[in-house]
């Protein structure tokens, strides 16, 4: 009974997904902040083995597409990793402000 309880608890914990922050960065915050744009992109891997970091470029392209004619300012970037036992999700979360020049 105890063994089953322990197994179920462990399984529940693994579904939760523990997250760790890798890096955070920001550029200057502008005065005009009405128009917030944000995006995130991620990449899954098994036991930390990756063959590409192209998901970062995907985040940039998605951000650019939300502000095609304006100036993107106040870029706030988080790079974090969420672990689910043997499977990991690397994520880049970006938010910024789109101001028309």
């Amino acid at each position, binding site marked *: 009974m105890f063994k089953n309880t322990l197994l179920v608890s462990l399984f529940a914990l693994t579904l939760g997904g523990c997250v*760790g922050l890798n*890096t955070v*960065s920001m*550029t200057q915050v502008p005065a005009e902040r009405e128009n917030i744009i944000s995006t995130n992109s991620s990449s899954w891997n098994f036991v930390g083995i990756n063959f590409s970091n192209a998901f970062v470029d995907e985040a940039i392209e998605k951000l650019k597409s939300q502000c095609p004619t304006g100036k993107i300012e106040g870029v706030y970037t988080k790079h974090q990793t969420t672990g689910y036992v043997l499977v990991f999700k690397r994520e880049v979360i970006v938010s910024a402000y789109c101001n028309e020049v």
Partner: protein
Amino acid sequence: MPIKLKSIFGLTFLFIGGCSQLHHVHIGEMDQSQGQLTPFTIKVNELGFDVAKAAEIGSEVAKSASTSEDLELVAFILAISNFGPKTGNPVYNDAYADQVLSEVIKVCPSKKITGLTSVREATNVGPVSGEVVRINGYCINSI
């Protein structure tokens, strides 16, 4: 191989190593249209020391088996007492990089700064290292 020779080889590699490690870099915008640029560098550093690794090395080079076991136990206790993510070797002062902003503000007489690059790096010699935060930039000297 006798333990003494192993120790000598190990220590030699340690000191020849002196590895330079880059952990993070952030490159900022650069404006070259407002005048001549004069480069500056601000560096803050702190001694990084991995006590658990040092105890492990001690257990490897120890002459007697019981001393080796004791040091292994010490290494284990130290490792679980200083748990968590590490960039480079751990330091005993977490405020060594707190003054970089005020230093950057003071460095340019013209108060015009551009092209900031922030580098987090380290120079490692085994369990000891110099943990460095370096900020490079340019002062704009108005035309």
